[in-house]
């Protein structure tokens, strides 16, 4: 009776690859329907993502916000609280960093940068605190509140950059540039890849360490898996949930700050094309595994970069990639269901032969 499946991760990896492969196959079918050769299409995508130094740099530049928001979502999900509000936390964090960068122009570079990042983290974390408290105190569904708070944040920052903090060039939907010493330097010519990737690296290592190697990460995990068990064993489960959400919000805030300091050098009204949403999907796909988040972010970054090259060189619209990504999500979300249906079907077939077996 003991089914000892040690290699559950391996099994999951298996389904993941099947899902990705199936989605790419559907993408290929769409290309064929569109009158293009999938081989040429995916070839262009691959070279577009990794074909040159510039392309590789662009792929990694796109990876930075995905990794951070992905880790942010993963840590909250792991503690059993769903942070769908990353986008709002990112916007507010980005604005806070820009505010520091245009206000404290007298600060030396490194201190200024750290201050800006901390400001982003604090504001993002505080914005994550609100839905977390509403959840543990009033049992208000955090999925709904965080979705609602996203739009509130984007509207609020839109107001800020169009009114009190409008750039002197007029209402162009952006703030003034941050002071020179706040700007990260670019690493590869023409690409937006900048030193924020090092910050990302540090964050990834710290979060990985926190989630996988420490007692705090352990507490998060157990609370997320079975909160009654955690309470029974002496963990304060509600506090853990709030803490995880604040860390998650803080990370999204940092992701926003890095976009400001590394890419745009100012806060823009539309600074994120949904990074936190992509990051959340990445976390869902890899089941909140931090290493998985990093790898899947690179994959998503490559898809995004490659798709633009694919569009430029052979004219397949780059949005095909969004379609493929969304189908991956559907397959992954349905994975357990597909397996269950298969299992039930199999059980029905063998049910009769099993009667009479002893109870275990």
């Amino acid at each position, binding site marked *: 009776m*003991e089914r000892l499946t*040690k290699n559950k991760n391996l099994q999951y990896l298996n389904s993941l690859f099947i899902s990705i492969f199936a989605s790419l196959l559907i993408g290929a079918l769409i290309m064929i329907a569109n009158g293009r050769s999938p081989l040429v299409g995916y070839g262009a995508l691959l070279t577009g993502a990794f074909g040159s130094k510039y392309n590789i740099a662009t792929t990694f530049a796109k990876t930075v916000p995905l990794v951070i928001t992905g880790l942010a979502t993963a840590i909250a999900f792991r503690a059993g609280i769903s942070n769908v509000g990353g986008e709002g936390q990112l916007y507010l964090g980005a604005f806070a960093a820009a505010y520091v960068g245009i206000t404290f122009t007298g600060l030396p570079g490194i201190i200024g940068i750290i201050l800006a990042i901390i400001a982003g983290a604090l504001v993002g974390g505080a914005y994550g605190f609100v839905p977390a408290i509403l959840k543990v105190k009033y049992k208000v569904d955090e999925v709904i509140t965080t979705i609602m708070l996203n739009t509130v944040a984007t509207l609020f920052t839109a107001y800020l950059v169009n009114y009190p903090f409008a750039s002197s060039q007029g209402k162009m939907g952006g703030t003034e540039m941050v002071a020179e010493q706040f700007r990260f330097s670019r690493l590869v010519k023409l690409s937006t890849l900048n030193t924020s990737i090092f910050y990302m690296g540090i964050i990834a290592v710290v979060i990985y360490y926190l989630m996988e190697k*420490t007692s705090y990460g352990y507490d998060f995990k157990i609370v997320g*898996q079975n909160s*009654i*068990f955690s*309470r029974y064993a*002496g963990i304060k489960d509600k506090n853990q949930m709030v803490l995880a959400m604040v860390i998650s919000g803080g990370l999204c805030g940092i992701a926003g700050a890095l976009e400001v300091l590394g890419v745009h050098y100012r806060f823009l009204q539309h600074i994120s094309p949904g990074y936190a949403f992509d990051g959340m999907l990445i976390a869902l796909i890899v089941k909140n595994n931090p290493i998985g988040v990093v790898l899947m972010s690179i994959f998503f970054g490559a898809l995004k970069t490659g798709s633009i090259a694919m569009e430029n060189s052979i004219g397949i619209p780059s949005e095909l990639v969004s379609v493929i990504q969304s189908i991956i999500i559907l397959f992954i979300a349905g994975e357990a269901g597909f397996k269950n249906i298969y299992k039930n079907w199999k059980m029905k077939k063998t049910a009769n032969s099993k*009667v009479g077996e002893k109870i*275990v």
Partner: protein
Amino acid sequence: MYEKVLELKNVSKQFPEVLANDNINLDIRKGEIHAIIGENGAGKSTLMNILYGLHEPTTGDIYYNGKPIKMTSPLDAIKIGIGMVHQHFMLVPSFTVAENIVLGTEPTKRKIFVDKEKAIESTKKLSETYGLTVDPKLKVESLSVGVQQRVEILKALYKGADVLILDEPTAVLTPQETDELFKVIKRLVDESGKTIIIITHKLQEVLSISDRVSVMRQGKMIGTLDTKDANEKILAEMMVGREVLFNKIDKKHIENRKHEEMLKVEKLRARDNRGLIALRSIDLSLKSGEILGIAGIEGNGQSELVEVLTGLREKESGQIFINGVEISNKSPRDIRELGIAHVPEDRLAMGLSKDASISENILMGNQHNEPYAIKGIHLNKSKIKSKSRKLIKEFDIRTPSEDVLVGNLSGGNMQKVIIAREFSFNTPILIISQPTRGVDIGAIEFIHSQIIEKRNQGCAILLVSAELDEIFRLSDRIITIYEGIITGEFKEGEISKQEIGLYMTGKNIQI
């Protein structure tokens, strides 16, 4: 000769992991009140769900009035004339009484709209016919539990039930409501000729209301007898007896041993999840080096007692002392630090995370402590691993590795993981609830010997079990609990299994 209204022949039901019903034979006579009793997990509910078309039997046949029937959904059961009153009422809380009663078979006007007047009218008529007063226009959520049950009964009658199955009908009722319900049941049989099947584990009720009684245990039908030939002792034995009798366990009597009072409970009072009084006034004292067994039929306050003692439930009044320290309003963590370890009754819900590995489950409680966490932060994988391996070996957990997810283990091995973890805290007090429920015989022997070992080392052990054999085998002292009151206290050997039934059913006292 009696007229058989319902008959089951060799009915079995196999679930993926368990054989819930094993070759059941049962006949129900027309116009009788037939009680089916058994402990939790004996297979009563599965049997009832088969009779109500919610489960299809894997093998076996069912006959209604002598004709074979096949039911694939409750709709079939309803059509045949079988109605069910579920333990968790199947009523939509925001709907009115009338809406709930006609749900699924609403009367309509112009074939489109629900005819509310007619629904209310029918409800009124129905409630008058059977003498079950309800206000058809009230929302169900505003009704007391007793009235909700009345609605549930009316619902079954509205659908034309001749055979009415009541699943644990008194579990949620107050004593007054129970009396009221029994009057209703009697009336339904005497005046309307209905047949009643009542599922319960309360022996007294069985004796007071039923005509015949069938006993189930571990998925099997143990036997059916006329209630007039039954008494509590006989039924209790049939319910809890084990097929395999244990060898006498070797309990060392350590002479001149100091027995210090470790845990003291005074006038403890607490409520259950529904807000009803579960513990009326409990006094007990637990000493080091002894096993105090709490014997009682399930649902008499044992669970609540354990929860209060471990900080998982608030008490209403009274005092608890651990080693002389009062523990009111202390968190589970504080209580653990004061020296209580706890093996909970519900393994999967409380004792484990089945998505975590064996070593992660074993780590629980020590995750912030040296040497398992360096400076309380960095998890020391090798120390955790070596501890897990040691415990796996010591407690005979059958697994190829400590990295196996606990959800993949058998019930017995899961239980050993919990026992290994809680015993390894080496606390002076252990609270152990249902240590061998759903555990195979071999593992039971092992777990029992571990508990004795702990006692011999001087641990104070509070043992709660629904298995009388287990209580008798392990305890140095036994107390009986009934309806939240301690009804008796005995030293080992002072009372027989036969006699203790009286105390477990409150027969010796007046409440």
